């Protein structure tokens, strides 16, 4: 039951073949069985999930019209607030905090009767590409437990690959949905910036953060996308326009006559051989399905990483200032005679991890008077240039494609002491966030040299998210007919797995 896709589960629920309580319980059992090894979850809300499932079953029994994913379980990245449920963002500084309010994404999930199983592990405040920066210990890649599941949303992606949940919510600031999807053989989508409300998403970098769906199939991602997207008056940057028809696009999967642009700069040197092989193969399959493959150039992408590591830390240095022990979360050193300033300092010293501190310091420096123009100001100019590169490329092609990451999953600990090497993992995903466009990663097979999953990235213009779903569905279908079974059916079994 847990190995089905979410849409298969949904139709079994609709036909009465299974109940949401049974489906939810099966996932909770799988979590109990495998999460000691995977560590995808920081908090499992057994009681809440079963109560929600029972409520959906009752609604269905009474003949109420339900949404397409009603009763299907989901794993929520721990960066999203859910009323009464611990929300830590993978940080010690928020240990024990229970939000008094639901994020808009959670409001939408509840409105759609999607059952929330619990909160998934992540790099602290979404800063990282391996989930090793979680204050609560790393998540392990279900393909090989000695390897990273990607990050920052490693918990969400791993929960899908370990069949602990059929759906998950991620957030993507520089690739935190797509890179974990790539290295775990799952599907992850970063919608157009402003497509999904950020209200209740604990901010890392406000101008780059975007919540999105994680799933095992393109159609499942599209169904979840439609459930959580749409204008929200509580988020000033939310786009007030209809949600692109992503479910229809995922169902049709039609790419005939579509122009697919291969970004010259996001391939070649630095990309693992097996990654390149799978990428070329996917292009051939898309061409065979009727798409026209063209090459495009984006000369300013080479500055994207540097600009990103000025903008994101700058914004984070300000966003994370609120964690000061005054109103919620951890409080350290509050003893007789201690000043507020001392308590703030001690709490932040103890509460934040190394990577978070590194970025706060970097960002504080980049915004300082006298450095602002050289750093933050220049980075914003690069951002404009990257957007222009995309605009030009989209004149030649309907969507753009690249490998999602240069390599497959690396070993836990391998890059932990080399931040630059770690940052390079996001070289192909970051430009999408810089321009605010949509991006998807879906599995394109495994690399021959290590047998680990490789991701294929599709990028679509602002609010044309439906295009990446069309291409994704077409490629998925072509690969499925080539393989005869989904990629995840070949994943090594975890000890105790159902």
């Amino acid at each position, binding site marked *: 039951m847990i190995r089905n896709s979410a849409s298969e589960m949904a139709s079994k629920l609709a036909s009465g073949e299974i109940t949401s309580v049974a489906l939810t319980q099966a996932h909770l059992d799988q979590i109990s069985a495998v999460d000691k090894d995977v560590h995808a979850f920081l908090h499992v809300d057994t009681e809440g999930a079963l109560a929600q499932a029972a409520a959906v079953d009752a609604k269905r029994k009474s003949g109420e019209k339900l949404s397409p994913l009603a009763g299907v379980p989901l794993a929520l990245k721990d960066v999203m607030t859910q009323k009464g449920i611990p929300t830590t963002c993978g940080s010690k500084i928020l240990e024990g905090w229970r939000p008094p309010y639901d994020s808009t994404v959670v409001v939408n999930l509840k409105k759609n009767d999607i059952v929330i199983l619990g909160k998934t592990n992540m790099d602290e405040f979404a800063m990282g590409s391996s989930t090793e920066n979680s204050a609560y210990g790393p998540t392990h890649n279900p393909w090989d437990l000695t390897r990273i599941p990607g990050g920052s949303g490693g918990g969400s992606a791993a929960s899908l690959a370990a069949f602990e949940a059929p759906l998950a919510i991620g957030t993507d600031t520089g690739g935190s949905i797509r890179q974990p999807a790539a290295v775990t053989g799952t599907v992850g989508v970063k919608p157009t910036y402003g497509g999904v409300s950020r209200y209740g998403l*604990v901010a890392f970098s406000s101008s780059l953060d975007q919540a999105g769906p994680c799933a095992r199939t393109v159609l499942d991602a599209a169904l979840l996308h439609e459930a959580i997207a749409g204008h929200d008056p509580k988020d000033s*940057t939310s786009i007030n326009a209809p949600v692109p028809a992503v479910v229809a696009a995922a169902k049709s999967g039609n790419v005939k006559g579509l122009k697919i642009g291969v970004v010259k700069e996001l391939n070649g040197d630095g990309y693992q051989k097996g990654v390149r092989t799978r990428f070329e193969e996917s292009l051939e399959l898309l061409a065979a399905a009727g798409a026209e493959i063209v090459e495009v150039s984006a000369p300013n992408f080479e500055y994207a990483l540097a600009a990103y590591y000025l903008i994101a830390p700058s914004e984070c240095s300000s966003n994370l200032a609120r964690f*000061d022990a005054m*109103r919620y979360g951890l409080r350290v050193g509050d003893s007789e005679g201690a000043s507020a300033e001392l308590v703030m300092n001690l709490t932040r010293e103890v509460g934040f991890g190394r990577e978070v501190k590194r970025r706060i310091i970097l960002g504080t420096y980049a*915004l300082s008077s006298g450095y602002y123009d050289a750093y933050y100001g220049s980075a914003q100019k690069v951002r404009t240039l990257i957007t222009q590169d995309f605009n030009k490329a989209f004149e030649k092609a309907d969507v753009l494609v690249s490998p999602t990451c240069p390599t497959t999953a690396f070993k836990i600990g391998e890059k932990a002491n080399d931040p630059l090497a770690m940052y390079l993992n996001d070289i192909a995903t970051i430009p999408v966030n810089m321009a605010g466009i949509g991006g998807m990663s879906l599995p394109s097979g495994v690399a021959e040299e290590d047998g680990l999953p490789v991701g294929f990235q599709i990028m679509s213009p602002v609010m044309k998210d439906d295009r990446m779903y069309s291409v994704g569905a077409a490629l998925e279908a072509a690969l499925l007919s080539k393989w005869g079974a989904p990629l995840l059916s070949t994943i090594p079994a975890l000890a105790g797995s159902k």
Partner: protein
Amino acid sequence: MSLTYDDVVAKYEPVLGLEVHVELNTKSKMFCGCSTIFGAEPNTQTCPVCLALPGALPTVNEKAIESTIKIGLALNCSIAPFSRFARKNYFYPDMPKNFQISQYDEPICVNGYVDVEIETDEGPKVFRIEVERVHMEEDTGKSLHVGGATGRIHGAEYSLLDYNRAGIPLVEIVTKIVPGTGKYAPEVAKAYVAELRDILRSLGVSDVKMEQGSLRCDANVSLRLIGSDVLGTRSETKNVNSLRSVERAIRGEMIRHAERLNNGERVVQETRHFQEDTGLTRSGRSKEQAEDYRYFPEPDLVPVAPDAAWIEQLRATLPERPSIHRKRLQEQWAVPDKEMSAMINADVLDVVEATVALGADPAKARGWWLGEISRIANEKDVAIKDLPIAASDVAEIVALVNAGDLTDKLARQVVEGVIAGEGKPAAVIAARGIKVVNDDSALMAAIERACAGQPETTQKVRDGHLPAAGALIGMVMKDTKGQADAAKVRALLLAHLGQSEG
């Protein structure tokens, strides 16, 4: 103090810079839906947004933008077609996000001016105060430092935080530097703040209560030798909570600066706090090492891009500028300067205008509000505005007097009754049984009774000795319990005795 003010201005020229913070009177806060009502229980007017809970996002209060644009237009500013919010980053416990959402290099209104007129040795003179910018921001919470002698954070045992004020919309109005006011600098500054207050009040965008902090002034003062074009070092005085304090604070700072300069000392660039009791300022934090606020554009808010048509629509709704309005009223009512100032100082101009608008004669309306009603307000030690009597009440009373239905004396009783809470004028008249005796036959009977009771006096009047009539009139008034119109009694009596006014 060895230096006199005259010594200071004989040698130095003051240069001013004024920053006025205005709390807007919107119903909800700048970036969330919380109430803005003053004086609620601490921390009851808060939500995830104004408490800066993780994940919460601000959204802009449209009404606050409208009010700010109105202010900009009233101050002759250009309204920027595109402006942005920015984050001003610094840590302080009463600021929940540890940054303030403000505007930095792209404010919503720029380049305006306000003309103020003050009395100088050469007669009335207009000074133009140039406004550099008007921008929007949010207020902080309030800290209450408990224990320790000064009520300041240093030495306090603990501090209490109230976030009800956090996020209240503030508008900051910043002048360009103001040179050229010479010895009149303190008065010009006071007149400027007063003019701003009047403009803001006429726009209806703020309560403009300096004592409650809804209008706050920071005064920057520096001195330079007369004739020099090099600016001196400035001090910034905060906590100036009344118009009088604006004047006192600037005068005091000018003397303090001059004393230091004369002694060969430097003026320290710093924030100072005005002490209401002594009229002096005390050093706050030094700004020698300029604090780095790390401003950058607020990524959580889209830019403010007001539609040009909307701006014109708002411009069309602007009321007449208070100073121009006053001049026009003065001409219409033909009031001497002294009376006009009396009305402005007593803060009754608006209510007099309203009374006149309801049909009362300007002189009568002014007479009531500045006379009897002011007297009662003084007696009760409350503001005239807080007395329970409205322009419509006074207009009604004036009309009754004009119609001869009330005498001035009776009208005073009615005013007193209305203020005592006995109801509207008609109700007071009915309840107290006040009425003018207008019935000629009843009056005639009373006159005849009076004449019969005082035959000698009556004869004197018949003989043309008119002053003697007073005694008879007094008797008639007594007989009618004061409800007769004395003038009418006199006319009837004289006619009865065959006399006429000489």
